């Protein structure tokens, strides 16, 4: 499908252009999500996109689906309600590193634990962009932010490891540089039955970049290219060799009972007992 056809079919064109800054990675991620939805062949009428608060969470407003722009950090909680009320719907959550890992961290681990059939795409730009450049739980330790004028003291999360440990059954990491891989990773997540999670390493030249001497989007994308190591290559490297790098690709996949299916069995059992 051409870009024009994709835009016509999947976006609310009257809502464009978007509000994101020049050089922001969010448009690339939204484009990848749209291409992945198309590639996975989801039923547009039966797909719901849920977001929280922040730059990332404005994406659903541009997308021609049923869209729910919720409160800060709570996208997964709302999405859980949508999915449970109508399990036949495909529910996608678009969120950011602050939204999902800080204020929404509890919902993330519990949604993963339940293995409920949601596909979560995290726009990880290492910073709170909407509020003007404060550090998030994913800001690399020692980086600068408006609230870390001397560098961050906090250690940063590996969100993929967290979700894997919490019980997520599809975990992947992509970047805004490796866009074809990103589309495939999201598409595979959409096709996976259970809690699927894709972290997207993205760039915020406006706030993270300016504070950390990465002055252009191109420089930040080049940083991604130089520091990302595909899963297969990473398997051959020692922890020492991987220091300072990050692994991209499908990191974890596991088959496990999906929450709404298990609940449907419970309903059948409860109704059977009634007879």
């Amino acid at each position, binding site marked *: 499908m051409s870009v024009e056809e994709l835009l016509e079919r999947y976006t609310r064109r009257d*809502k464009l252009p978007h509000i994101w800054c020049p050089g922001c990675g969010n448009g690339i991620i939204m484009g990848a999500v749209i291409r992945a939805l198309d590639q996975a062949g989801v039923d*547009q*009428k*039966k797909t*719901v996109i*849920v977001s929280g608060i922040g730059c990332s969470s404005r994406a*659903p*407003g541009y997308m*021609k*689906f*049923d*869209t*729910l*722009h*919720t*409160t800060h950090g*709570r996208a*997964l*909680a*709302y*999405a*859980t*309600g*949508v*999915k*449970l*009320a*109508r399990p*036949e*719907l495909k529910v996608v959550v678009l969120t950011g590193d602050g939204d999902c890992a800080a204020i929404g961290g*509890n*919902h993330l*681990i*519990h949604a993963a634990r339940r293995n409920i059939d949601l596909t979560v795409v995290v726009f990880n730009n290492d910073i709170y962009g909407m509020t003007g450049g404060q550090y998030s739980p994913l800001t690399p330790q020692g980086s600068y932010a408006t609230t870390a004028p001397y560098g961050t003291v906090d250690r940063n999360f590996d969100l993929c490891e967290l979700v894997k440990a919490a019980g997520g059954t599809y975990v992947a990491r992509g970047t805004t540089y490796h866009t074809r891989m990103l589309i495939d990773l999201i598409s595979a997540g959409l096709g996976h039955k259970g809690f699927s999670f894709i972290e997207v390493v993205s760039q915020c030249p406006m706030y993270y970049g300016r504070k950390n001497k990465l002055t252009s989007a191109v420089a930040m994308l080049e940083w991604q290219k130089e520091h990302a190591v595909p899963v297969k290559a990473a398997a051959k490297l020692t922890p020492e060799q991987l220091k300072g790098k990050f692994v991209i690709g499908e990191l974890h996949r596991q088959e496990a009972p999906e929450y709404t299916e298990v*609940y449907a069995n*419970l*309903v059948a*059992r*409860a*109704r059977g007992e*009634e007879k």
Partner: protein
Amino acid sequence: MANDRRAQLLSGNEACVRGALAAGVRFFAGYPITPSTEIAEGLAAALPKVGGTFIQMEDEIASMGAVIGASVAGAKAMTATSGPGFSLKQENIGFAAMAEVPCVIVDVQRYGPSTGLPTSPAQGDIMQARWGTHGDHPVIALMPSSVRETFDLTVEAFNLAEELRTPVILLLDEIVGHMRERVELPPDEEVHVVNRTKPVEGPETFQPYKPGPNLVPPMPAFGDGYHFHVTGLAHDESGFPTGRGQDADRLVRRLHAKIENRQPELARAEEWQLEDAQIVVVAAGSVARSARAAVREARERGIKAGLLRPITAWPFPEKAVREAARRAAPMIVAELNLGQIVREVERVSCGETKIVPLNRLDAELITPAEILERIQEVAAHVG
């Protein structure tokens, strides 16, 4: 679940469960907290049997979020909590008000602030029910004082939420939630049930926040093919965010008007022995039970007392209180807090009569004897 006419012994919380089922609840998300937990337990057992869904979420905030998500997907949805949990839910209650998502929140009030005296009775959340979430928002809060009324007002809470597309709060207190009474519940077919209005228009021209009759926009469900946007941002009739102050002004005023226009029928109070009353006791929820006994006792002693019992905490029954105040009978406002209902009584009565607060804060209920004593004190002055 079919109700039969035989008398049953039920608690307020159990009656709430029965009322929710009669009203057609299909989704409950909650988090354990005394003294509301029996509502979650009851629905955990009952909902699967009617094909509904129960989930115990990771916290109170998530419960409220899940309820809103389920409602947007078309389910009649509710949660139940108590003081501290009610505080945690407030942000998302504001979302439901702003995005006009029907839902019912039960708050079984307990002693606060903070963890307080778990889980002794109080009526300390009356103002939280009104002003708990930030910004100007309308609210409906119902305050039953018996087990049967808890059933009826739970049904009504769902009906109002669905009809007006708004969160509705059912404000129990620990005494009403936990006390048991003999009740006869109506069979399901005799329960009046309201469902939200779905759009008649097709998706092409549909404006999700274009008000219909009564200023309430029709509401499709996610998955119906309308591709609509729901946000807590100020939005115009298309449902999309607007940066324009005039649009926000129009929206927030409409949100208020859709409920305020209904004030005459919505705002309700029970008036008992008020016609010739020289002293009026104002009391709601469990306190109204003691107040009724005190009024009866006072009358037996020749004091013309009466009871004015707010059934809706919000909208506050202004007309009934104002009329009582105009008769210039002193008003004793009895409540299990340091004075919340009394502020509304003072505001509405505009200094037309003497107002005597009666408050208790030692985690015990207000007894009929205490209210009677206060009636006698006031009567001595009146006489």
